C-alpha cells in the first residue's frame, strides 16, 4: 500500500534491516495513520468542531537484552534509519540498568490485511447532517427551562496501521470507530443534577460506522433525559446503609473496568505501573485459586468481538485476537498479557498489547472485558427484590492503587420496594472492597439486556496513553453493599 511517496512494506524492511545491522535481537515497527473528528455542541454553542490527523512510525528494539523505542512523524528513509539508530542507542542505555534479559514468548508469524466492519464511513457524512442531529437533540433537551446546560457530542476515529517485525510479520489493519451521546444539566439554586443518554461521559461507542450513531436515536430520548434531570432537583437524597444494589449496565461496565480490567493487567501485577497508576491485588499466587466473586460471576477478555472498541484482528505485537477466561464461576482465572509477561508465566501471549499511536510503545491494555450474561430478565430481577436500590449511569469514581477499595457515584437511583421501582433518589454513591462486592453478586440479567459499552478514555502509562476499550454487561444485583449519599 502506498502512502504518499512511501511504499510501506519497503519502508518497514529498510528500518528493520537497519535495526538488525546495529545488533537488535528483535525489532518491530508500526506505521499509524489516524484521523479523528469531534463535534461537541454545548448549550446550543458548537464548542468543538475539529478534524485532526496524525501520521508517523515507531520502532521498538531489543538490544543487549533490553528495550528501546523511538519514533518520528517523517516517513523518509533518512528518518527511518535515524529512528532505528536512536532506538538501539536507547536500548543500550536501558541495558546498563537491567536485571535480566527481555525474553519474548513465541508467536506465529502472520501476514495479511484486515478491515473492521462498517456500513457508513462517518468521515463521508456531511457535517451539516451531523451538526443538524446534535442541534435537534439540544433543542429538545432545552425545551425544559430548568435545563441550563446541555452537551451533545459525536466522535469518530479512523486508523490505518501497519505492523512489521524482524520475525517476518507484516499485518495491515484498518478500523473505524464511532460514538455519540447527550447530557442535560438542571440547575436550581445550589442544586445541580445531570442525566445522560445512552450513558454518561460522552455516550456510547463502537467499532462501527455512522450507522451506530443513527441506531442510538438520540433525539427520541432527549425528552426523558431532561425530565429526569429536573426530577432529580427535588428528589430526596439516596438512603444510606447496607443495601441490596442493582446496577444498570453502563455503570456495571465502569465497575468491571476499574475493579477487574485494570488489576488483571499483568504488567501492573509485576510492578511496572507502580509509580503511576499502581499495582494489583490480583497477585500471581491468586491465579486459579482466588475467589474473586460469587459463582454467578464470569468475566472474559474477548478481542474477537470486533464490534467492540477493544476488538481487533491482531494486537500491536502481531498476536492474534483471542477470548480468554478472566473469572470463571467466580474464581480468578486469567490475566491480560504481552509476549514479555507471558514468557514469565511460561505461556504465550493472549494478545493484549495496544498502543494509542505511532509515538507510543504498546502496553498491556484491556480489550473487551465482559461480565457474561446470566439468566434473569430485568423485570424478574426487580420483582424478586423486596427492598433495594437500582442505580444508573456513572457520575464519579475513585479506587485505590491496588484496585480494592472503591467508591462510585451514579447520576440517579430508584427505590425498589416490594418488587417494583419507586421513588427517584439523588446523589447516590456506593463503596466496597472488590472481592466482597463481587462476592455479593447473586443475579445477572440475560442476553436481552446485555450490551457492549464502549469506553474511549482509559488512561495508562508514562507518557500517558489513552486506550479505547469496551465492557459487556447486563444489569446485576449485589447484596450487602454500603450505599451512601454524596455531600
Amino acid at each position: 500500500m502506498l502512502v504518499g511517496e512511501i511504499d510501506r512494506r519497503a519502508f518497514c524492511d529498510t528500518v528493520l534491516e537497519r535495526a538488525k545491522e546495529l545488533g537488535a535481537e528483535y525489532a518491530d515497527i508500526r506505521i499509524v495513520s489516524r484521523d479523528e473528528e469531534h463535534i461537541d455542541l454545548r448549550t446550543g454553542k458548537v464548542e468543538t468542531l475539529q478534524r485532526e490527523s496524525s501520521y508517523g512510525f515507531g520502532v521498538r528494539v531489543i538490544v543487549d537484552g533490553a528495550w528501546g523505542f523511538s519514533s518520528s512523524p517523517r516517513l523518509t528513509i533518512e528518518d527511518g534509519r535515524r529512528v532505528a539508530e536512536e532506538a538501539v542507542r536507547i536500548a543500550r542505555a536501558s541495558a546498563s540498568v537491567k536485571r535480566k534479559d527481555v525474553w519474548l514468548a513465541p508467536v506465529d508469524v502472520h501476514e495479511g490485511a484486515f478491515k473492521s466492519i462498517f456500513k457508513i464511513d462517518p468521515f463521508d457524512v456531511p457535517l451539516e447532517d451531523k451538526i443538524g442531529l446534535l442541534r435537534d437533540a439540544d433543542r429538545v433537551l432545552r425545551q425544559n427551562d430548568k435545563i441550563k446546560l446541555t452537551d451533545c457530542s459525536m466522535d469518530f476515529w479512523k486508523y490505518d496501521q501497519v505492523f512489521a517485525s524482524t520475525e517476518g510479520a507484516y499485518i495491515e489493519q484498518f478500523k473505524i470507530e464511532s460514538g455519540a451521546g447527550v447530557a442535560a444539566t438542571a440547575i436550581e439554586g445550589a442544586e445541580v443534577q445531570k442525566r445522560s443518554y445512552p450513558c454518561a461521559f460522552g455516550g456510547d461507542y463502537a467499532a462501527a460506522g455512522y450507522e451506530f450513531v443513527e441506531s442510538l436515536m438520540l433525539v427520541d430520548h432527549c425528552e426523558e433525559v431532561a425530565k429526569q434531570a429536573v426530577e432529580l432537583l427535588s428528589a430526596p437524597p439516596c438512603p444510606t446503609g447496607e443495601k441490596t444494589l442493582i446496577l444498570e449496565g453502563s455503570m456495571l461496565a465502569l465497575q468491571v473496568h476499574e475493579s477487574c480490567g485494570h488489576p488483571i493487567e499483568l504488567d501492573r501485577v509485576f510492578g511496572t505501573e507502580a509509580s503511576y497508576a499502581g499495582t494489583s491485588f490480583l497477585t500471581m499466587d491468586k491465579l486459579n485459586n482466588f475467589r474473586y466473586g460469587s459463582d454467578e460471576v464470569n468475566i472474559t477478555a474477548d478481542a474477537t468481538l470486533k464490534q467492540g472498541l477493544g476488538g481487533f484482528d491482531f494486537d500491536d505485537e502481531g498476536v492474534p485476537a483471542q477470548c480468554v477466561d478472566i473469572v470463571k464461576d467466580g474464581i480468578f482465572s486469567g490475566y491480560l498479557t504481552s509476549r514479555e509477561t507471558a514468557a514469565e508465566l511460561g505461556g504465550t501471549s493472549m494478545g493484549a498489547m495496544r498502543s494509542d499511536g505511532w509515538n507510543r510503545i504498546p502496553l498491556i491494555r484491556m480489550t473487551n472485558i465482559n461480565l457474561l450474561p446470566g439468566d434473569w430478565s430485568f423485570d424478574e430481577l426487580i420483582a424478586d427484590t423486596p427492598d433495594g436500590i437500582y442505580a444508573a449511569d456513572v457520575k464519579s469514581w475513585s479506587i485505590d492503587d491496588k484496585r480494592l477499595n472503591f467508591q462510585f457515584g451514579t447520576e440517579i437511583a430508584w427505590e425498589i420496594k416490594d418488587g417494583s421501582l419507586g421513588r427517584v433518589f439523588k446523589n447516590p454513591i456506593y463503596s466496597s472492597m472488590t472481592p466482597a462486592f463481587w462476592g455479593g453478586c447473586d443475579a445477572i440479567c440475560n442476553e436481552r439486556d446485555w450490551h457492549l459499552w464502549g469506553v474511549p478514555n482509559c488512561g495508562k502509562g508514562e507518557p500517558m496513553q489513552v486506550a479505547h476499550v469496551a465492557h459487556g454487561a447486563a444489569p446485576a444485583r449485589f447484596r450487602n453493599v454500603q450505599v451512601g449519599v454524596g455531600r
Partner: protein
Amino acid sequence: MRLSEERAAELARAAVAATQADAAEAIVSASDSALTRFAGNRIHQNVAEDDAQLTIRAVLGTKTGVASTNRLDDEGRATCAAAAVNAARHAPEDPGFPGLPGDAPYEPLVREHAEALGFDAGRRAEAVRDIIAASSSRSLTAAGTVARNGYTLAVANSLDVTRATSSADVRATVLSMDDAGGSGWASWLGADLSGFSPRNLGERAATTAERAKGPASLEPGTYIVVLAPEAVSDLLDFMGYLGFGSKAFAEGGSFLVDKVGATIVDERISITDDVRSPQMIGLGFDFEGMPRQRVPLIERGMAREPVTDSYYASKLGMPNTGHALPAPNPYGPLPLNLTMDPGDVAEEDMIASLGRGVYVTRFHYVNVEDPMKLVLTGMTRDGTFLIENGRLTQSLKNLRFTQNVLEAFSHVGAIGAERSLIGPGEGGATLVPALMLER
C-alpha cells in the same frame, strides 16, 4: 530535530496566509521528549519521540472551525486549512464570538536550557542508577521515571499577532516499596538540571518507604492533617479545573460564583496563577498568543475573578488574562501555573506542634463528588503516617477521604515556608507549600 522558534513562527504565519477565511489563527507546537521508566530496580521502558502539530482555527463571520495535522509540508498545510474552513462553513453562528484577539504588549519570557536538552539516554540511565541505589541498598524496590522535554510553541493570527517561544524541563519521580505494603514517594521538576540530585531523590523516597513499613488501620473520622506539597498540589489542580476558569464561572458552575470579594477560605491562603514566578516553567503567552497575566484567584482568603481568554473576557466584560487553551476548547480558559503563597512554618515544625494528627504524602485517584461545593474524594498513598506527640509514629494503611476543600482550607493550622514545584498534573505545574489543616 525540534522546530526552532523562527521556523515555527514562519510555519504559523504561512498557515494563516493559506487559510481562506475572514480571519485565521494558527498554532504550531513541536515537542522533543524522552522518558526512561524503571520498576523493580531496572529500566523496563525507554522511549523517545518528536512531533510537531499545526492547528488552524478558521473564522467566517462568527462561525469557527478547527483542523489539526502533523503534516507540516505545503500539502499538509493546505489540506488542514481547507478542513478548518469547511468546518467553519458548517458551524452555527455564535453571536458571542468577539473575533480573534489583536496584539497586546508582551515581554518575552526566556525558558530554554540547553543542559536539559542534552540529558540523553546514557545520562538518564545514570540518574536512574543513582535513584535506585538508595532503595536497593535497603532491600526495597524502586519504580519511577526520569524524563526530559523540549517544547516550541508559535501562535500567529490574521490580526498580526505572531509569538514564538520554547522551553525545556527535566522531571523525575520515584516510588520506593517493600514487599509488605510500605511505600514512599518523591518527585522533582525543574527547568534545567541544576538542583536535580538523583541520589537525594532516591534517598527521600527510600527513607519514607522504610518508615512506612508495617502499616496499621486508622479509624474513620476527622483529623488534623499535615499535607505534603504533593498532596496540596492535587487539591489545587482540581480547584483550577473546576472553579478558577471563567467558563465554569459564566455557566454558574464555579465555586467562585456569587463569591467574588467574599472570604471563602482562611485569610492566610492566597492562590495565584503566575507563570513569571521564578521557579515556574510555563510559557509566557497562551494559545491565542496573548500574554499570560498574573491573576490572583484567592487573595488573603477572598475570592477573586477567574482567568479568561478572549471569548470569556468579552462575554463577562473582564480583562483578557491570557489563559486560552488550544482551540477547540470545551473546557474554557484554565490556569496552568498555580502558586500558593508560602507561610512561615517549616513542615517539620508543623509535625512537631501536633499532639495527634495524620501526615499525608500524596493522594491517589482524586475525583469530584460536588463541583460547586468542591467536594473531592480520593485515597492517600505512598507515605501516610500517624502523628503523635510531635513525631511521625505509626505508618497507616491508605485511607479514603471525602472532603469539602473550601471547608478544609477555612481551618488552616499553618502554611509551609518552603515550596515545591509539582507537576505536570491536569492543571499544569503548581508551586505549593505543605499545609496543616485542622479539620
